[in-house]
């Protein structure tokens, strides 16, 4: 009996150890997968916010370009606009880069 138990027991113990090892590996794989998904989503959302700001900037630049090229505006008005949005944009970008 003891002779039978030992190798079988040893084997079963070994098997349990292997299973625990495999379990650790698979749970780490799952954690990596979760991390990748959440990283992907958060990155996309930040990039989308950034894109929104870029689009808003682009529209303002177009507007100011139109104003400047028409030469209707007085210099100070255009300068103040430029300073405003450059300042704002610079502030927001520093956070994300």
């Amino acid at each position, binding site marked *: 009996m003891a002779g039978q138990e030992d190798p079988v027991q040893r084997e079963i113990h*070994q098997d349990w150890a292997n299973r625990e090892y*495999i379990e650790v590996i698979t749970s780490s794989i799952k954690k990596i997968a979760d991390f990748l998904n959440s990283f992907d989503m958060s990155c996309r959302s930040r990039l989308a916010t950034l894109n929104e700001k*870029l689009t808003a900037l682009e529209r303002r630049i177009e507007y100011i370009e139109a104003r*400047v090229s028409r030469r209707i505006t007085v210099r100070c008005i255009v300068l103040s606009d*430029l300073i405003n949005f450059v300042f704002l944009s610079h502030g927001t970008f520093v956070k994300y880069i």
Partner: protein
Amino acid sequence: MPLVKRIIEPRFLSRGSLPDGVASELECVTNSTLAAVIKQLGGLSRHAEDIFGELFIEANSFYLKMSNLQERVDLLAVKVTQLDSNVEEVSLQDINMRKAFRSSTIQDQQVVSRSSILNPVLMTYQGCDKPPPLNILTPYRDDKKDGLKFYTDPSYFFILWKEKMLQATENKRKEKRRHKEQKHAEDSSGREVKKIRKARNRRQEWNLMAYDKELRPDARVTPSPYHTSDGSMSSDRSGMSDDPSSPHSTHGKDRKDNVAMETSSSGLTQSLDRALRPTSASSGVTTATTRQHSLGRNQAYTQAPSLTGSAKQNGAQSNEAKDLSNHQIPPAPPPPPLMPSTGHTAFPFSTTHNAATSASLHSAAAPGNQGDHALSCSYSPSHPPPLPTTYTPSPSCPKGQAPPSTTAAPPLPPAMDNRKASGLNVPMNEARSDLLAAIRRGIQLRKVQEQREQEEAKKREPTGNDVATILSRRIAVEYSESEEESDPEDQDWSD
């Protein structure tokens, strides 16, 4: 049900049959499980690379966009520092004549299409079963259709929708035409007095517009916030005979105010509109040929609400059109009555298209044309350049009836066809001879001809294959229909 984007393949690690004759089965299971784990890790690393690649591509595009913007900002900064209000001459005429600012409204199209498929989804798609190869049978078909289209056609729904939309626009146009025909049938009795038109009013209008409001010698009495009334100017203004036009102008101004309030972007353009209305009101009373008057009127309407104020372009084009039509038009038939107060919306490029198509007309407009071509010019704002070239049919006019105004005396409204572009002169000549023959035979035959011409026009009509263009055309037709109901345009050929 959401579509799974990425799958890590060996899902169940320990499933699988054991080989026979193995001593230690537990070890065997462990080893096979570990092998599956390794495969999973491989799949995981592939997916991770894919994820980071996508994020990198997006971030890269934003970086390029940002650098572009940075360059523009630098250029602007340089330009602005060079501005000097002492050196610049800003004439008052310039302020009024400038085109209003329009930001580019590019609409995204085909966002979810085969070309924008993600890589992992593409891999999954390629792993699926293919449809049966019915396209092998295509050469044996009689109707030359692709055999596989009967089994599965990705563009089926889009084509269906497109045809429905085009059909709907055509129906709306027909209804409008019928509506106008009815109106003309009703109103054709007592309008001889008002049918006189003023020639070349567009040039004068533009000259007037170049002046500021206060300096205009011809300015009407229009209560506008931008109007500072001088004593001298008020005497001039009060001297103008405004009685027939003032109710029109006030009424029109109310309507146009609504439109202008919604869409106006600057006070300058608003004053531009207000300036346009009195001039258009004044133009309505004086004599003119049919063509110029309708042309000028339409352009006045379309410009005033649209606020694009593409004055110079339209002025130039209308002048060209007027010159062309001046030579072509015989002693004008009595022009149809003018309703200057109808403000109907127009799209920014409808005015240019009006000028282009009116220039292509060979003679005085048939009834219903002027109204229709202004209405049916619909363009998506994101496709300005190709549209004037691709959009050919305004409502077709029975051009064959144009030269003989006497033969055109019979009621033309039922024979309102799609107007073809100038490039279709040859089929138009044929249509003209056909129509003349048909006129002699009777009105019934003309209706058949109309249908045939419509079909031809439809086939030639190069519809852009965009959702945006089709939708915008439909919306233009509907919107302009609702706005233009009280616009009895110059459709009468009565002498």
